[in-house]
């Protein structure tokens, strides 16, 4: 159907507010799609929503987009759709969709409120690449008049760390950019490590930008606290056993998946951090230990 229009809408949403998570943009797109849908049956509606989500993951292959899409579908169809008239059903679904969107727009603020208290005055923080949630948390902490300094990894191949450093400098936070290879050497200087996540998996581990796993291993070796901040729509029903077990469709960017001949020559953009290396996860559902993530997932999905 209107796939091109969908993708366009998604891109405009992303462009409009660069601070918004790609998953939120995806949900806005899906909601718009729902409003415009001309289908006659509920089943057909579900099918077209699923295919729309697949289409969006073709544009942005991050884990968050697919998990957000699935959660959106579940959320709106959780109601008992007893109305005889399809348009009434659709109205109910649209209302629920708006509600869902509202809830997740607030989630970053909730996470920041929970996490900033864990940053003590005079703390030295290590973070990885550019994460908007971590930035939000550090903004809140700075607003609470806490003094802290930050080490950011450069995070090649896209040098997203520089973006993070620039944003932090605007907040008057002393920031140092370090090489990805320097993580092992820097960890002993810091008090805690805070990273974002692209997806939180069933085991309680996270999927995040490549380089997170070695940061987690180094901080475990030095017995440093390793915190993860993530919104609840990033919870996904995956259960990787090791790096190899992460599906290829998440490991590489969407364009790479389409265009490359052999994936073994491509560089993966994400890695998996097992739950044994994570101390706590901060989500809008609360502060969770990795083993509680499965509990929350069961509640969300079942």
């Amino acid at each position, binding site marked *: 159907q209107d796939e091109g229009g969908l993708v366009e809408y998604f891109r405009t949403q992303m462009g409009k507010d660069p601070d918004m998570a790609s998953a939120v943009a995806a949900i806005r797109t899906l909601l718009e799609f729902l409003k415009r849908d001309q289908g006659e049956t509920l089943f057909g509606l579900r099918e077209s929503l699923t295919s729309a989500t697949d289409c969006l993951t073709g544009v942005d292959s991050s884990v968050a987009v697919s998990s957000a899409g699935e959660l959106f579908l579940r959320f709106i169809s959780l109601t008992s759709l007893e109305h005889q008239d399809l348009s009434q059903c659709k109205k109910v679904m649209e209302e629920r969709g708006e509600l869902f969107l509202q809830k997740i727009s607030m989630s970053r603020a909730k996470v920041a409120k929970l996490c900033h208290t864990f940053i003590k005055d005079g703390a030295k923080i290590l973070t990885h690449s550019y994460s908007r949630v971590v930035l939000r948390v550090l903004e809140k902490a700075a607003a609470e008049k806490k003094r802290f300094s930050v080490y950011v990894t450069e995070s090649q191949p896209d040098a997203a760390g520089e973006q993070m450093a620039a944003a932090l400098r605007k907040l008057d936070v002393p920031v140092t950019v370090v090489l990805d290879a320097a993580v092992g050497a820097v960890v002993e200087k810091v008090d805690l490590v805070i990273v974002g996540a692209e997806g939180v998996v*069933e*085991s*309680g581990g996270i999927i995040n930008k490549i380089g997170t796993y070695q940061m987690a291993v180094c901080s475990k070796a030095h017995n440093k606290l390793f915190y993860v901040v993530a919104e609840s729509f990033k919870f996904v*029903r995956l*259960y990787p*056993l*090791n790096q190899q*077990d992460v599906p290829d469709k998440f490991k590489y960017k969407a364009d790479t998946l389409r265009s490359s001949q052999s994936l073994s020559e491509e560089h993966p953009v994400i890695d998996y951090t097992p*739950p*044994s290396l994570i101390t706590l996860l901060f989500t809008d559902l609360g502060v969770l230990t990795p*083993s509680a993530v*499965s*509990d929350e997932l*069961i509640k969300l999905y*079942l």
Partner: protein
Amino acid sequence: MADSGVTDGAEKKEDITRVKNEGKELSKEEKQRLRKEKKSQKKNKEKKDEQDALASEREKNCAPSTLSQPAAHKEPAASPPVQAAVSEPPAPAAGAPPADKPAKSKAELKAERRARQEAERASKPGKKGDPGPQSTAGKPKAPPSELQPVVKRLPEHVQVDNPEVLKKLAKKLERQQIPLRSDYGYKVSLFSHLHQYSRKAPLTQQLSIPSTVIHPVIVRLGLQYSQGIVAGSNARSVALLHAFKQVIRDYVTPPNEELSRDMVNKLKPYISFLNQCRPLSASMGNAIKYIKKEISNIPSQCKEEEAKTKLQDCIDRYIREKIVLAASAISKYAIEKISDGDVILVYGCSSLVNHILCEASEKHRKFRVIVVDSRPRLEGREALRRLVKHGISCTYVLISALSYVLPEVSKVFLGAHALLANGYVMSRVGTSQIALVAKAFNVPVLVCCETYKFCERVQTDSFVSNELDDPDDLMVTRKGKTQLEGWQQVSQLGLLNLVYDVTPPDFVDLVITDLGMIPCTSVPVVLRVKNVDQ
């Protein structure tokens, strides 16, 4: 009725012993009579002891006149020292005891309890026995008042080295007319609280043929369990359920009885018998709980034939849903985790793991299997046979070679006997060893387990509750010589043949159940969800 029973008990008692010797099942009334007789006899004996103890006190204290009244015309059970100890009238028979228990002496406590029981019995004729058994299992002595919550006695608290518990067990089996199986051989001291039976002395040899108390299907099942003909968690549960189906088919409700209550009572001696043949597994325990619940939920207006068909359908559905369909759901999830080129390690013979691997090979996944085996059961050979028949290329090693093969292994698939509420996995002995070494080599360990094997028990070590198999199994004859032949004669030698061990959740990466893939720590969540469903 309670009072009159005591006085003409003498004649009834002869009747009862005669009937018992003929091997016929005692009627409910006769059983009640027998129980009351024994209880009053026990009380008489204890009263005499207390009387002697308190008589000396009385001499010192010049007690009030009520004490001197001879109790000759009263029942022998309600004697003066007991009345003295009870100050308030026991009329509110369900009255809660005073809270300052520790201050009183043990004899006074006993006396008070005795008096309260007598008062209860006097005020409520026909009330059946007391919740006495619960207070003697070594737990803090809670007076058996009706208002107090019943102390939950865990059936897994096997305490073979505690003679009181053994006596109680013997009495219970005698009441149900099931022979008591005696332990065999020297037991290693760390496990002396568990039963150890010999396979050469099955319980069925002590039964009279034909036994009218135990259904022949159950006798056969018990023999199959104790000889190891039916082994493996799923196989045992399915065999048990089929046997119960036959029992239900042959069941006839006696007159003036309700099917829902009488059938449960009929099943109790069968369960004790099977427990004596071989201790029940967690899966069997859950199945039995389910059946009992279904039976007691039968409405009383329901006709017998209808009820019987309903129960048989319930059992069929249980087997189909919890075992057969669960196996296909689990293999669907598990096959996602098997990729081409995998080297999979399995231990022993788990019907579920074999099923998964056979299905995966049918779906044309390319993998090979390493089967690890251990003495004395050598169950791996059966697994090897089944896998090779499906055309899967296998390697066979003994558990001592584990660290030699692990570098080439990509995944470990284990079956489970039960999953405990704190996330520990109870499985065949050797499983925790495999999980430990796999963890050291960073190989993912996957446990496959149906949800009906989840149990509420909590265990952190393999000693507290386990099973000891026949120690003679450890003897092996090589080149005509059996080294351990005379092990019974060597006083310091003990042979230990453990059946199960527990694996901590840190060594397990993933548990695959019919509800999906969950981490080992989420087992209590599943139990909670299941309880909500029921």
